[in-house]
């Protein structure tokens, strides 16, 4: 293990220059011919009790980063330090995850009671009647009827299935829950119910959330801080209100402008468009990774070294258009 780094007061997780790279293998001997940098040089502190949102388009590395914090992904460079240590067994209890597709993450042949109690059994926390009582308590915490105990996942609606996934996570009395697009597949009315439930649970148990999402409106309402990612790198991070109200980096601005608003005056013709597709992390642009789509790109953006620039409480990736050098 790499040496522990000093964590600021109140931090639950500290990430320093974290990179996650996957090898590209070719040929008969599956020789490693290169690496895909899914996450590159990411640093932030996750404070106890806060909700930090990771936003960005698909392939930006937000889910990979979440998986790295769950220790489901090996870190190639940099360090992730957790308050209380990073042993796999401890992390498996203290950090839980809720995925986008509840049906895909619940074994169809298991009953709800056993699905929620699985972690309790595995970690030997409670057994027998006490375990069943604990599962029923969890059912009521996520506002499911106790009759759900003997049901199978397919007998529940999408929103109810997501409640089961949340109960499963809560069973371990975790400190951090990684919510990986946890409400993206739900209808708006159900999404609202789940977001409210998550808020209530957070207040009750002082939970910390890493909220991975692509929906900036949901993030604006739900998260305290936000980190905007693009092709593996963080482009901007700060308090949600600040970042969404006055984005500094051109990518954050473009992302905000592209998201549709529920306003009949915001017609599609008036929305400024970014050209092209997100570049592949196999072959990222040199310098600033956004320069191939950036409306403010200059020739020397290709030679810009990625670093974060502090303005107040906000960090923005160095940008020529912001006169960073």
């Amino acid at each position: 293990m790499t040496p522990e780094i000093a964590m600021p007061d109140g931090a639950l997780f500290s990430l320093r220059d974290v990179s996650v790279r996957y090898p590209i293998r070719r040929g008969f001997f599956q020789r490693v011919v290169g690496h895909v940098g899914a996450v590159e040089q990411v640093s932030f502190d996750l404070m106890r009790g806060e909700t930090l949102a990771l936003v960005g388009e698909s392939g930006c590395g937000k889910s990979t980063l979440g998986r790295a914090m769950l220790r489901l992904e090996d870190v190639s460079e940099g360090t992730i330090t957790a308050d209380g240590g990073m042993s796999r067994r401890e992390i498996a209890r203290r950090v839980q995850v809720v995925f986008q597709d509840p049906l895909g993450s619940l074994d169809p042949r298991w009953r709800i009671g056993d699905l929620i109690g699985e972690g309790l059994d595995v970690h030997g926390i409670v057994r027998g009647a006490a375990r069943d009582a604990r599962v029923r308590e969890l059912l009521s915490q996520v506002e499911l009827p106790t009759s759900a105990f003997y049901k199978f996942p397919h007998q529940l609606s999408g929103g109810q299935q997501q409640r089961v996934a949340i109960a499963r996570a809560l069973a371990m009395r975790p400190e951090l829950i990684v919510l990986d697009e946890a409400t993206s597949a739900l209808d708006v009315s159900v999404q609202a119910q789940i977001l409210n439930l998550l808020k209530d649970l957070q207040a009750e148990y002082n939970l910390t959330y890493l909220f991975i999402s692509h929906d900036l409106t949901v993030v604006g309402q739900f998260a305290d801080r936000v980190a905007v990612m693009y092709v593996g790198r963080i482009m901007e991070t700060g308090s949600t209100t600040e970042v969404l109200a006055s984005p500094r980096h051109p990518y954050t601005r473009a992302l905000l402008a592209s998201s549709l608003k529920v306003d009949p005056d915001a017609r599609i013709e008036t929305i400024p468009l970014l050209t092209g597709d997100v570049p592949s992390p196999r072959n990222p642009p040199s310098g600033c990774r956004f320069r191939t789509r950036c409306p403010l790109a200059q020739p020397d953006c290709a030679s810009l070294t990625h670093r974060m620039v502090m303005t107040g409480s906000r960090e923005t990736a160095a940008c020529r258009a912001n006169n960073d050098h």
Partner: protein
Amino acid sequence: MTPGSATPMTAMSAPSYGQGSAEPPVLAVQALAVRYGEMEVCSDVSLSVRRGEALALIGESGSGKSVTVLAVTGLLGRGGAISRGSVVLDGEEISRLPETERRRRGLFGRRIGVIFQNPSRALDPVFTIGQQLNEALSLTGLKGGTALRSKGAEWLRHVGLPDPEEALDRYPHQLSGGQRQRAMIAIALASEPELLIADEPTTALDVTIQAQVLNLIRRLQSELNLALIIVTHDFGVVAAMADRVSVMYAGEVVETGSVTEIIRDPRHPYTRALLGSLPTGQPGARIEALPGSVPSAGTMPTGCRFHPRCPAAVAECASEEPRLEAASYGRILRCLRAEELAAYDA
């Protein structure tokens, strides 16, 4: 937002036919019901769309919006059938036509173009984009390799694919998600349809690509003067794209109005609840969540289908089925208390 600021609708001949104007609608669906065996999945859908107009069909999952699209395009599949109502395309009743007759008249694919949510599933992986375009182009009577190829390349240029000539020889997997959706749009439009149906066309795409694709659909719609039906669950898409909106709940249309009316001054309690449950982006604010979920086809409540979740429900809502009709203030809605529902004070 000022309450009741929306322009009042003009008088209507039939409730579902939108604003009464001289030009007949390209598509008019009237009191459509669809059954799969014993299950009635869609009970009373009325909507219409004219040339050059974009109609949004919005609803949560299970509201019957996709089944409506399948019924209009004749793709209900085995066991599915239209049990009541009519579908009129350009003055022609098409809901009772057998498959062979639909094909002969070239309804689906020729006169009705469809863009599906998932382009990688709607495109055939073993044919190149060019081959799939040729199939659509030949429906217009175009023949000959070079003519097809140049017309195909023209369409791909039209939808903004880089290197259209090269893209003709590409297989779907060689394109990115956004490019595949562009290719799909080219194929849907190559047969020069009168009606374009876009079923959740951008749900699988990232926001920056979503804006590009929606912009493209809107541009082509106005250039080609198409009637467009955009099926979505996203009010953002509705606000950006639609001229008129029909809101669906549990297999029925519950409210129809202009996009400004529906978003700024929703009248039906369901439309209000749906708009109310959208995150506002206000930090820390609680969202007004609508309790419960959409009922399934087997367990429809009696009376008004929304009454068990409706904050404005009264006793008779449980027994009496409301009809879709124009209220005195011009909106078309399905609510027994339509006249009492005041303007929306946001």
